[in-house]
């Protein structure tokens, strides 16, 4: 679905990503963690075509990024600025159809049906007329997921999806993502181990370099290599028992 080969990227000569290789396969559910400044946002920008790589190749569904990104449903970090924005849940979700409707084209009945279905999938259709600012953090996250779904993507790309929600809400959203994973490939990034739950199928560490072996657990050599990560793992991961079934395995190693 996504293939990243020998990617080097950064800004103004300042290197952020070094020789990143990643291949995302159909129906993967990958969680990438890494410290702030480790290049998560940069990697997302490259995948979304917002930043050109310095070197290396990125292909999405076998196509170059500008064309391939229409297969991606992007769910951004929820931010505070949209609290006051006068826009309804429906109108936000409808933006997912922008990519299929060119300039000067109006949304059709078919678009409306797709938007309604997307909102139904995230259980937000009943709030369709509510202004986005009146929703809770978790509800707003669901609307953004619906907006991504409305683009009828093959891949969901989530940026810090659970940065502003509490534990129960993040559990609900993970359950939703697991359901969607039945037919969608999912890649999410987060700086926080808490955000990566056992719903994720595989996990990787990103700190300038990417350490990803399509495995479910973080191996000691990955930790050592991406030395930014293990601190997070120890500080947050264990107390919240995110990887409880793997702790024993790892301690045996």
């Amino acid at each position, binding site marked *: 679905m996504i293939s990243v080969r020998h990617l080097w990227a950064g800004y103004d000569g300042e290197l952020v990503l070094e020789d990143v290789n990643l291949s995302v396969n159909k129906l993967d559910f990958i969680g990438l963690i890494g410290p702030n400044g480790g290049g998560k946002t940069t990697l997302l920008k490259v995948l979304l075509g917002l930043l050109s790589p310095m070197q290396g190749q990125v292909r999405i569904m076998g196509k170059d990024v500008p064309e391939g*990104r229409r297969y991606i449903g992007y769910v951004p970090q929820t931010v505070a600025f949209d609290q006051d924005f006068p826009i*309804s849940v429906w109108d936000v979700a409808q933006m997912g159809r*922008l990519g299929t409707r060119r300039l000067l084209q*109006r949304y059709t009945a078919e678009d409306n049906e797709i938007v309604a279905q997307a909102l139904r999938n995230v259980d937000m259709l009943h709030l369709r007329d509510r202004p986005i600012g009146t929703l809770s953090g978790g509800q707003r996250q669901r609307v953004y997921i619906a907006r991504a779904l409305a683009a009828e993507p093959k891949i969901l790309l989530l940026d810090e999806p659970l940065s502003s929600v509490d534990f129960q809400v993040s559990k609900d959203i993970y359950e939703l993502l697991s359901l969607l994973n039945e037919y969608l490939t999912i890649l999410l990034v987060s700086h926080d181990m808490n955000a990566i739950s056992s719903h994720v199928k595989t996990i990787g560490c990103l700190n300038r370099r990417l350490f990803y072996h399509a495995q479910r657990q973080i191996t000691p050599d990955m930790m050592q290599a991406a030395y930014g990560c293990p601190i997070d793992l120890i500080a947050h991961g264990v107390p919240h028992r995110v990887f409880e079934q793997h702790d024993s395995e790892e301690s045996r190693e």
Partner: protein
Amino acid sequence: MIEALQFDFMRNALLAGVFVSIACGIIGTFVVIKRIVFVSGGIAHAAYGGIGLGYYFKYSVLPILLADAAQARLDPRPGYYPLFGAILFSLVSAVAMGLVQRRTRQRADTVIGAMWAIGMATGIIFVDLTAGYKVDLMSYLFGSILAVQPSELLVILGLDIVVILLVVLFYKELVAISFDETFATVENVPVDVIYIVLLCMIALTVVMMMRVVGLIMVIALLTMPAAISGQFARDMRRMMMLASILGILFTTVGLWLSYAWNLTSGATIILVLGAAYLLSLAVKSLVRRQQAGNTSNGMV
């Protein structure tokens, strides 16, 4: 007020207020939501360069071309030339400022600030260079809604229609870039082009407004009705409609007060708007407090 309507200039002024308020409500909504007040100010002030240019052309260049200097100088009314100069200049500066913001790594606000001042300075120098009769350019700084000519009214109406048409055509893209530009980019919306179209619409609106409240107070008329309606509207369509209605109401009230008390009309309109804005803030905070009180009572 009723007897004032028997004067042509009063009817023209009222109509100008209505036309301008409609564009203001629509475009002001984008300006407020997208927080591009500073760029809008820059475009407005740079437009003064066009007015200077228009005067220079009319009173210095055109008479030479037509060999009819005497007649050109006889007509002291600000007419088409400054208006079209302003339209041209503000459109050019809108595109330039948009490109600076999008394409260069310069500090965009510094560059816009410079263009703001350079535009105004250009206008002043061209007026200096203009031979002979110096028309009251203060009318562009502080507005002269009572001197709006029927011909200008037509231009204002034309600009209004252009602005409304563009907003209708590009509505979904305009909302998209206002709400979440990154997402719009990923969805292959031509965000830079749409943004520059928005700046051009601001330019056209600003030129219309200059006659009503003057360049210096343009930003107030552009933002305050939208800011008031933004506190109560649930979506952008309603925000635009309410802002337009409020604009019409307040320009009319302001015009009437200025007539009744013989005050400068532009400034009176702005003060009416300002009072309404402060009042709306007070009402809003009262409502919030009430709501907060209700929920906490409910929880107890």
